[in-house]
């Protein structure tokens, strides 16, 4: 049961976002820019970074939904998503993405854990400053989202089909559009 009164039957981050649309809007804008905006990393690669950090954070909802969105962008390859979550160094992904995931793993522990060697490795694999920046921020952002979702004890459905269906909608419409469709409670918006 959630720690505070959230709309019933609304899973994961969408419950608190309905309670507080004022903060939901910039959060979803940030997610859209980072995961779906114009980029040299594909949406699938960026979602893999998000899913990986969420898995390491042990956030059931975040890792399930972003894993499903990643798989949707990667031709439905759920096995690849699983292998990245479990052991990305041996997953079937580029050397550049492995180096970026290594940076994301450090950021998850603490920003201070990222070393010049981590950054050098990513550069040697062809990563740009822009890609390194966004990897750090994606990892940092998921450290926020996981804490938000779990810190309020939100509901995470167990059925994988729920996440597959939702992922298809997110991939088609984006994060901002999906939450814009929520009918917000007027009682909280003036608080």
């Amino acid at each position, binding site marked *: 049961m959630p*720690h*505070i*009164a959230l709309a019933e039957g609304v899973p994961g981050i969408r419950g*608190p976002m309905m*309670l*507080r649309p*004022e*903060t939901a*809007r*910039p*959060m979803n*804008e*940030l997610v859209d*820019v*980072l995961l779906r*905006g114009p980029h040299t990393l594909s949406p699938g690669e960026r979602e893999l970074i998000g899913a990986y950090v969420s898995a390491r*954070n*042990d*956030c059931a909802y975040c890792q399930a939904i972003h894993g499903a969105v990643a798989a949707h962008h990667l031709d439905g390859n759920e096995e690849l998503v699983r292998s990245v979550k479990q052991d990305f160094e041996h997953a079937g992904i580029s050397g550049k993405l492995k180096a970026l995931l290594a*940076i994301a793993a*450090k*950021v*998850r522990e*603490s*920003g*201070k854990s*990222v070393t*010049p060697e981590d*950054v050098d490795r990513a550069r040697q694999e062809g990563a740009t*400053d*822009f890609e*390194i*920046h*966004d990897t*750090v*921020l994606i*990892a*940092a*952002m998921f*450290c*926020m*989202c*996981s*804490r*938000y*979702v*779990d*810190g*309020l*004890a939100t509901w995470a459905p167990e059925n994988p089909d729920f996440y597959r269906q939702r992922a298809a909608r997110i991939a088609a419409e984006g994060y901002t559009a999906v939450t814009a469709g929520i009918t917000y409670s007027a009682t*909280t918006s*003036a*608080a």
Partner: protein
Amino acid sequence: MPHIALPERLPGITSAFAFRPETAAPMRELAEILLRGPGSLSSAEREMIATFVSTRNDCYFCQTSHRAAAAHHAGGSYELVDAVRFDYPNAPVSAKLKALLAIAGKVQQGGKNVSPEDIQRARQHGATDLEIHDTVLIAAAFCMYNRYVDGLATYTPMDDSNLYDEMGARMAQEGYITPAGHAAAMP
């Protein structure tokens, strides 16, 4: 030295914001709503939660700048915010704020650490659901900002209390939407 080529002479998060304005805009807006928007917790209280979490995350730039912002808000002072940073159970703040700081401290470690007892204690001291929500989100958001600032090894002026005091005054008075950090560029 920063890990990537960030604009020079801008301190901390402002250099990363200048590097990537597309992500800076929603990040600034989120800080503005959480720390300065309408709410039943004072801005000094909210900035103290942010400073406390940034201190636990050992982010020098964030804890020093938000410490100054907290001190510049009505009801805040450097003495008070330092008492909260280092020993909030014995700080001269309300029992409600102590209970919310306890929740923020749990969120800093991981969202799953927040227990029903933590929430119950906050409620017993008069915290509303929205205050609990915002406390969780402030703590979570600063786990993002802190990692962003340190994960890029942004330029961090040290031992410059005037710089941070002026920065905090601007953060408290002008807020986060205007790129206040630009005015703090080092000469």
